[in-house]
């Protein structure tokens, strides 16, 4: 006899319970209690009354489903829609694979004496800071000197592709959110979920959907994780644009289009760039975790350090990631500072 027997009796459901005795396999605890052989009835005190969970109710009435049916149902449901989902998602995300593979191939097959100067030139173009260029030169030189160059470049190209796509998708979403309160209310919970979901959890459904050999697997994980700040800050930036300026734009008969590109986006640019900075930092965080699903780069070395307890390898790769993070942060912040000064002129 189980605790909630009387409940089902009182509700007059005893027949229903017995009629459809579940054929579910026994749970481990059932087996243990059975093998321990004390089939004797234990009188549970009020103090020990278990919560009426599915498993407890199942004890009293075999017709009730067990808790594992929930996880099992979710899994089966996902597997059922998986094939039809793939029909849509596979072609839609294929360009992502091409972009990632292409970027990795291009960056690795170009000789280092072209790639490093090109990176330095880009840094100079965005930041106009000789100190920063020198710092980047020393960092890349150092990484290359201890043979981490290939890994660092792989990580960097993945981040650049994913951050670019985040901006490409995230900025328009942010703009739409800033225009419609309804859409904003609908999207914010999704953003909250994407932001709070532990990074590992992104990988689980993706593993089922795509093969681990495809680059888009980690590409999607990184984009989903990193897109949130740029969406949020685009929305915020446009909403924060001075109402007086918007009113003046309206009073002189600007169209929505003129207002968006002539006033709102330029004035929201500092906030949008802050979002891009955050997005790049978050893709860096995710690219390390994504090495679990075959994302190449420094994360692979970190993973090797953990798996094989190779302390040195893990630490060196970790420091390399820190260097990359500092470089990306400083460069985007320098670009942001330049935008801010042109605005405050």
């Amino acid at each position, binding site marked *: 006899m189980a605790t909630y027997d009387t409940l089902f009796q009182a509700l007059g459901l005893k027949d229903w319970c017995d009629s459809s005795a579940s054929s579910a396999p026994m749970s481990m605890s059932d087996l243990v209690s059975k093998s321990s052989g004390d089939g004797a009835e234990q009188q549970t005190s009020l103090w020990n009354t278990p919560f009426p969970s599915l498993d407890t109710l199942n004890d009293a009435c075999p017709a009730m489903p067990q808790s594992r049916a929930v996880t099992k149902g979710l899994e089966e449901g996902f597997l059922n829609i998986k094939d039809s989902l793939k029909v849509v998602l596979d072609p839609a995300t294929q360009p992502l694979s091409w972009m990632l593979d292409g970027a990795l191939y291009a960056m690795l097959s170009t000789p280092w004496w072209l790639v490093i100067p090109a990176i330095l030139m880009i840094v100079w173009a965005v930041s106009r800071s000789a100190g920063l260029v020198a710092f980047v030169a020393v960092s890349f030189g150092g990484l290359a000197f201890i043979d981490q160059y290939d890994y660092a470049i792989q990580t960097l190209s993945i981040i650049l592709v994913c951050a670019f796509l985040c901006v490409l998708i995230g900025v328009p979403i942010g703009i739409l959110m800033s225009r419609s309160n309804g859409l904003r209310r609908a999207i914010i919970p999704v953003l909250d979920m994407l932001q709070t979901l532990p990074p590992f959890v992104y990988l689980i459904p993706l593993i089922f959907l795509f093969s681990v050999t495809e680059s888009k697997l980690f590409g999607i994980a990184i984009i989903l994780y990193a897109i949130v700040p740029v969406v949020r800050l685009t929305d915020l930036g446009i909403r924060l644009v*001075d109402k*007086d*300026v918007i*009113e*003046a*734009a*309206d*009073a*002189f*008969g*600007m*169209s929505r289009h*003129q207002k968006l590109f*002539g*006033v709102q986006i*330029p*004035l929201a640019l500092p906030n949008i760039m802050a979002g891009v900075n955050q997005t790049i930092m978050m893709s860096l965080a995710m690219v390390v975790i994504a090495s679990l699903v075959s994302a190449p780069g420094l994360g692979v070395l970190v993973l090797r350090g953990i798996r094989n307890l190779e302390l040195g390898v893990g630490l060196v790769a970790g420091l390399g990631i820190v260097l990359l993070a500092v470089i990306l942060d400083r460069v985007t912040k320098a670009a942001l500072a330049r935008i801010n000064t*042109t*605005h*405050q*002129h």
Partner: protein
Amino acid sequence: MTDQNETPETRVSLKQLYKIFGDDPETAMEHVRNGLSKADLLDQHNHVLGLNDINIDIPDGKMTVIMGLSGSGKSTLIRHLNLLIRPTDGEIEVDGENILNYSEAQLRTLRQQKMSMVFQKFGLLPHRTVLENAGMPLAVRGFSKSEWAEQARKWLNRVGLDGQENQHPNQLSGGMQQRVGLARALTSNAPIMLMDEAFSALDPLIRTDMQNLLLELQEELQKTVVFITHDLDEALKLADKLVILKDGFIVQQGEPQRILLEPADAYVEEFITDINRARVLRVRSVMRTGADPKSSSGRVEAIGADDTLESALAKAKGDTSVCFKVERGGKVVGQLDMTDLVRALVPSAPPEDGNTARKVA
């Protein structure tokens, strides 16, 4: 009064305009039609009656000043003229067309070509240069850069900002920023100019400069200006027509001199008690028309019809027996003796102990 110029055409006409702020203005409007007061509407239905039965005819080519204290609805009112705010009920006619029926595209055209606006907080685009800001109204209409830059430069020079074209607005002082705002409104070449407390944020001296600049420009351009202010001195200085607003309804409107000489109620009276009447009242408003100056006891002095009483007093040099012959364009149009002049300087209903009127406010 004696200001019998030809009545100018009406350019913009507001008819029975109501604006109610709240969740359900339509229902609240019913209550107002049934005679609910502003206070009761707020108490019982939690709606704010912003504008209450506004009827104004804004004359073409003149400066109409709408004056009221803060909260009187004057900024709400001016935003109705280009429909930045839509009324709850009523009609707004511009050149005979009810603009409430306009489509979005028509409304944009109206804002681009017929009305320009100058804002209290300037509303300049901080990321663009002074030249780009001033040329914005034409750039919006699709003019090429060379076209709008030429116009913008012309008007920037006219408001005294030559050489500042490549600055950004934040590099300029408040007064200069408002000059950019004024240049922007002028560049649009719109016949109607809306000015929302345009000079209220400026220092007194700069404000006087800007007022003089505006009067000078108005002399030359004859635009239809609607000017909002809370400052009676400014209102009297600029107004061809003065509208006094209180709690969303019009207390009195008309020629400023007339309002000064014949205030409609205690509220207006209280407003004008602190005014230096000698500086504001003009000879034409208080003179006797027609009659030749009687060559009685005293001196006879000539004076212009548009001169202030202050300048008449200066001309009298303390002689109370002097008699003025009032001239306009070389012709004698009336006469003014010191008794009339002094009578006009006395407020129409002087508060007995100086406190009663103030308590009303």
